[in-house]
């Protein structure tokens, strides 16, 4: 897959998570744009159309990732969205995006549990970008 010229939007309030994914995704050749809150991401979206978004779930509000995913899809229909979260660890709640029914209300293609393995993230990105 050619990653050249493809832009990934990275949103998480954990500075180090953003840094880690940025380092790895840039090494793969992606352009990375990043934001540390839902509000900041929304501003970014006015000028950037990402090819894929990797979002945290719990940011300044608890379901921030879902809200942001919804807005991304509304603005740029068809944009693949991955949500990475440790919500299961912290709250005992579990979200999946495995069935069509779940994907219909969770506007994400994939839910990944933190800590995420980069191999797995790469595989999902490859799949979603149609490598």
């Amino acid at each position: 897959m050619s990653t050249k010229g493809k832009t990934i939007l990275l949103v998480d309030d954990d500075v180090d998570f953003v840094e880690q994914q940025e380092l790895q995704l840039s090494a793969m050749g992606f352009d990375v744009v990043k934001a540390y809150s839902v509000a900041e991401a929304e501003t970014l979206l006015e000028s950037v159309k990402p090819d894929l978004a990797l979002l945290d779930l719990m940011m300044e509000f608890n379901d921030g990732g879902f809200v942001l995913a919804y807005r991304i899809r509304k603005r740029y229909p068809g944009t693949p969205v991955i949500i990475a979260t440790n919500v299961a660890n912290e709250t005992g709640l579990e979200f999946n995006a495995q069935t069509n029914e779940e994907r219909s209300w969770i506007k994400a293609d994939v839910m990944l549990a933190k800590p995420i393995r980069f191999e797995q993230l790469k595989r999902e990105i490859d799949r979603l970008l149609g490598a």
Partner: protein
Amino acid sequence: MSETLHVLAVDDEEGMRLGVQRVLRNYAVPLPEFELQVAFDVELAASGEEAIERLGAKTYDLVLLDHKMPGLSGLDVLAWLHEREQREKDPLPSPLTIMVTAYASLETAVEAIKRGAFDFIAKPFTPAEMRSTVSKAATHLMAQRQARKLAEEKRRLRFEFISVLAHELKAPLNSIDGYLQIVKGKTAGDDPEAYERIIDRCIVRLDGMRKLIYDLLDLTRIESGSKRRDLVSLDLVALTRNSIETVLPDAQSRGIEIELSGPETLEYTADQSEIEILLNNLISNAVKYNRDDGHVWVRWAQSPQGYRIEVQDTGIGMSEAESARLFKEFVRIKNRKTTGILGSGLGLSTVKKLVELYGGQVGLESTPDVGSTFFIDLPLGSAADQDSAN
């Protein structure tokens, strides 16, 4: 607020039972110290056997227990309550017992108290005597309940503290782990600069974790009171100069100037390490949350009550809602402006606790994007008073 206490009146004489019921039916004890009015719901038992049956089925707050009854006596019922406490793993809470003795027999009364009765009253009693005895018991019950509630609240707060602390310690570990995985898998490519960044971030997170642990040690030492306070005469201004020296490298690297003004020297009786914690927190915060090329003004002044230090910065500031939460444990104002700044969230809550030891005050004025001014008032002569009270 009002509270109803459940009373069981045990007497083989019907006249007595009904008498108690009548006296307490429309009686309410005002307990202004608990902001409470206590009323009574009275149930009756005609024998020791019936009393035990009822006590086994339901929780009562108070039992008025006749001593002399055919069959099981009042003392037998007391003994049964005592045995139940010993025997059962999770017994119903025992009621407070008031022994009713037929004539003022000191012996019976002493025996009853020995076996766990709270009080006694002699027959015949006037309604006023009964009310006075019951009101004493009600006060005792409410004080007990309040103490239990406070203990429970304290326990809850401690658990909450530990759970937040665990989370705060886990976060840097996860981050460092994430970076190490990248290094191990070499997934950041071949650029050495990427790996430099990784090392830098790991060091920052480790520093943050270390600071959290040090702050935590400060806090627990203060809270447990186990740290010996060494009250001596100190020069507040000299200590302030030292504290400024400590943050100077950080300040200079970001072009921040620190200016100290006020008297040349100020003598104060205090524990040196406590004053250092206060000064270091305020001054390092003023640098940490400042903008590059900003300014910090540190001012000491004398007031009729004591001394005041003000530390003013030209930093990110905060809203009124944010400053209201600021002195609580683990409160870190989390927004875009603070994401890159490490803090334990314990510094200012420690400052507040320390300042209170001196009978002083800490506070701030702040405007977002303009800056904050923190102040501490240290009253004269109070540290010594506080210490002798400990």
